[in-house]
């Protein structure tokens, strides 16, 4: 298999947009191609992610539409949908297309637009990512799924609502340093703890927002990458799946798909958790960050809450997690999130993250989770 590098990144501002998903993606993709310093005609394939376009925009077949709006109407496209892990799954397949020798330059990413519909509609469309025979009729929502996980983690390990609140405070503090973030405002522990319950024990400020946005990456084979500035190498990328049914999870305090995806990615990369300098992980809810830091091997099971409370995961701490602000503050356009996380890690490893730079970062990790913890992708990146 050939080595693969990320040579270009592009991310729109996250927040509310009047542009469609396909337009948002095209804008991010044009920035990524410009960043890579290649001719648009060098792109041989587009791997595009979007989840709710059929519902929010009455628009399917978005891959060719995005290619058309980008000005590359003849590039072959594939559309991916794996709930919130969508564009990280697309990324892994784009890596395989280059690693296998099929293509030398592939454009990958995604976009989402949901702020054009009411919150209750967005909540409904996201709930389509859970099972329609049992879980949707029961009225289970995504905050509900992670509330079940939070309760199990609290019961088993003594994790507290205050520890979860520390994750929100930290990610908002990081978001202030990211000009692309949806929220660039610090919040206090009290603000989180006094916010209204959405699904007990999760409160409004434990939840990431609904977000519009797009993100794109240009991937290249080693031969092409060597001709461009500062390639960031894909050291490993592994996907794992778990049962769609929440009631079938063997231990609700864990996300076993995260553990399996991480093991696969570390093995491919020849790395261990102690080699990682900077992390972008899937904090769709504060408890999700706590459980992910344990499943990725950074902290012992049951100590992820303590890590947040002690500041170990803050910029300046022993392992900075979500320097971009994470899904919590940067925002979570679900079809774009995986690619946006990778864009942040690439920016960090290039040393171009400005005020949120993790000094001397050489190895980075991205973790994206989809749906009822049923899809997880973990990737590792390194610089020369």
């Amino acid at each position, binding site marked *: 298999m050939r080595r693969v590098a990320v040579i270009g990144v592009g991310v729109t501002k996250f927040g509310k947009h009047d542009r469609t998903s396909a337009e948002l993606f095209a804008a991010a993709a044009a920035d990524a191609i410009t960043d890579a310093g290649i001719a648009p005609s060098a792109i041989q394939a587009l791997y595009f992610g979007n989840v709710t376009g059929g519902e929010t925009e009455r628009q399917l077949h978005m891959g060719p539409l995005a290619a058309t709006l980008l000005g590359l109407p003849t590039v072959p496209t594939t559309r991916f949908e794996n709930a919130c892990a969508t564009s990280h799954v697309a990324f892994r397949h784009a890596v395989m297309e280059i690693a296998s020798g099929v293509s030398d330059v592939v454009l990958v990413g995604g976009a989402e637009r949901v702020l054009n519909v009411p919150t*209750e509609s967005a*909540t409904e469309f996201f709930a389509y990512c859970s099972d329609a*025979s049992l879980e949707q009729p029961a009225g*289970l929502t995504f905050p509900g799924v992670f509330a079940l996980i939070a309760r199990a983690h609290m019961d088993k390990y003594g994790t507290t609502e205050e520890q979860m609140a520390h994750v929100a405070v930290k990610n908002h503090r990081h978001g202030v340093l990211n000009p692309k973030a949806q929220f660039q405002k610090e919040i206090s522990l009290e603000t989180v703890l006094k916010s209204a319950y959405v699904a*007990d024990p999760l409160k409004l400020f434990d939840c990431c927002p609904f977000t519009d946005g797009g993100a794109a990456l240009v991937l290249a084979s080693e031969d092409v990458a060597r001709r461009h500035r500062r390639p960031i190498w894909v050291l490993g990328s592994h996907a794992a799946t778990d049962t769609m*049914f929440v*009631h079938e999870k063997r231990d609700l305090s864990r996300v076993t798909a995260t553990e399996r995806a991480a093991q696969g990615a570390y093995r491919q990369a020849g790395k261990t958790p102690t080699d990682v300098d900077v992390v972008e992980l899937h904090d769709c809810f504060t408890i999700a960050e706590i459980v992910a830091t344990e499943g990725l091997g950074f902290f012992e099971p049951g100590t992820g809450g303590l890590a947040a409370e002690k500041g170990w995961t803050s910029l300046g701490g022993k392992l900075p997690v979500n320097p971009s602000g994470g899904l919590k503050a940067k925002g979570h356009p679900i079809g774009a999130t995986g690619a946006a996380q990778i864009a942040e890690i690439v920016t960090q490893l290039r040393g171009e993250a400005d005020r949120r730079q993790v000094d001397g970062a050489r190895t980075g990790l991205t973790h994206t989770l989809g749906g009822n913890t049923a899809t997880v992708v973990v990737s590792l990146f390194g610089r020369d």
Partner: protein
Amino acid sequence: MTERVINLKTFFEEARAGRLTGIRCGRCGELAIPPKEFCAGCGQRDWQPVPLAGPGTIVSFTVIRVAPRGRGGEVPYAVAVVRLEEGVSLLGRIVDIPFEALKAGLPVRFRPVQIDTQSLIGFGPA
């Protein structure tokens, strides 16, 4: 090839009508809800339906306060994962138990719940 004994649609329709059934693998004995083609435990395709009695205990629960479109009139409502006494778990709506009494390990009993014209899988007091 073993004939499919129950499908997803009929399984949940039966459950909502009050007849709760699991499927047991004829090879390794794994008990599952809902039905699948292959047993995740042993890879065989040899299922038999097993009636489930209904008693169980709460594994985890939440009180939903922001609902999807069309369900706003139902909030707040509790949803729980319940481990049935036969050893298999199931997700359902909690009814007739005060929210403050909910905790892991609380005994509950399966029963269908009628909300407007829709029947749901539910759990009430043991």
